[in-house]
């Protein structure tokens, strides 16, 4: 089994919308058999935390030029395009 991947989920508070996203990703990746561990933070904290994670998913813009792939999406909040984003996340994690 592959090493557990770490996803950093960011939003304006690190609490509100990021919890929605984190819960959704965790459930779906478990269904797809990919072990993930999720960390949450504020958008401003991303540069300080990005080195320890594999992927950043954010509901709000995060600073440019990060060393890891970033997905900025509202799909988990609006419900539109959610499956696509989950596929993209899976793609990054399978690499």
């Amino acid at each position, binding site marked *: 089994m592959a090493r557990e991947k770490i996803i950093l989920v960011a939003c304006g508070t690190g609490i509100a919308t990021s919890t929605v996203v984190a819960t959704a990703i965790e459930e779906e990746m478990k269904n797809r058999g990919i072990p993930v561990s999720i960390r*949450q933070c504020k958008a401003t904290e991303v540069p300080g935390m990005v080195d320890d994670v594999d992927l950043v998913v954010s*509901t709000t813009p995060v600073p440019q030029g990060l060393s890891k792939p970033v997905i900025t999406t509202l799909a988990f909040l609006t419900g539109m395009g959610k499956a696509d984003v989950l596929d993209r996340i899976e793609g990054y994690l399978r690499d």
Partner: protein
Amino acid sequence: MDALLAGLKGAVDTLGATVLLPIVIFIIALVLGAKAGRAFRAAVTIGVAFIAINLVLGLMLNSISDVAQAIVRNTGIQRDIVDVGWPSAAAIAFGSSVGLWVIPVGIAVNILLLVTRLTRTLNVDVWNFWHFAFIGSLTVAATNNLAYGIIAAALMAALALLFADWSAKAVQKFYGVPGVSVPHLASAQILPIAIVLNWIIDRIPGINKIDISTETIQKRFGVLGEPVILGLVIGLVLGAIAYYNLGDFGTALSKILQTGMTLAAVMLLLPRMVKILMEGLLPVSEAAQEFVRKRAGDRELTVGLDSAILIGHPAAISSSLILVPIAIILSIILPGNRVILFADLAVIPFIVAMTAPLLNGNVFRMVIVGTVTLILGFYVANALAPLFTSAAVASGFAMPENAVQITSVVDGFLWISYVVVKAVESLGIAGLALLLVIIGAAFWAFRRNTAAWERAAGAEDEAEAVRAN
């Protein structure tokens, strides 16, 4: 009806939020169609969250109360209203007697305004219903009348939708979030202030040319965006002012360092505790989304989301980073102020984010507008602190013995809270009727002249947009 409500209020007071809210959430979740197992787990989680928030709040207030008293002793400056932050305000709101009602009430208001076509916003952001409950709980604290509080909360739910529709176009364009609006009073309250100030700034020669770029600010002030570090630094500074003259050097230093670490811990822990509350509410909020969506018909709606989605924008971050030190200075120099800022220094972006489309992301103007809004907010907070504190006690939160009062920037600094509470406090039911008329008139005016309102909020003119392309 009054007897029933009084009886319910009695039950709330006896059982407390940790017992009653889980029961209510369980029932609401079932009614909205959530699965029983999931609803039950969610309900228990919410009760746990209350206990957790109470613990951290106790840690913070114990530490800060001692510091505040020592500062008064040392400097004569009285700062005894502690900013306990939005996480505490949210918990107080959901734990209040109004909080028990706010989810069904908020959903009912949204459905009513959708089917009457007075709004286009489907507010799926059930979590932020706490703002409505918060203003409702202040109203109850002022009038001791639960019905007034629930009506106030319902009016706020409607007002939030109006602000969301009003700012939708501007927000969608500037932040690049199609199909989204932001029914968030704490962020929207600044719009009228921003419109007026922007008009004035446009007419001052010289000042109207100033534009500050965002990158340099983020690099220089970036550390202020990290709550743990911010908490540590503020703790050290407050500790130094409070304890520098405490016996020998070693004792003073250890006390100062301890204060720094305690407040750093609070900054990290308080939001984490609220995250538990958020997790507990998630199944309810998902069920509520589904419930409203089904009843909204098939016309195209904008989806109302938390303003947390706007906060990452460089303009919002940069202006807030500058506003953090400004806010601290204001708390020291404003005459008559008793508020000591702390936990909500981390959420100043929420206060200014909504002005970015209107002010074209000009950080200079956002800082000016933010400063004026904060000054206003300080006086609102000073005036509302006694009600805020008694609302917290009513929701079962433990206040330390040395009698500090509490507030928070979100929503204790909100002029909307002040207007609503004062109207109901002085006029009773007539005050609520007056608010209903004002909000109703605003809805009517918005519908009659939607384009002009949207432009005022920062949306581009259709014609101009075409030319620009």
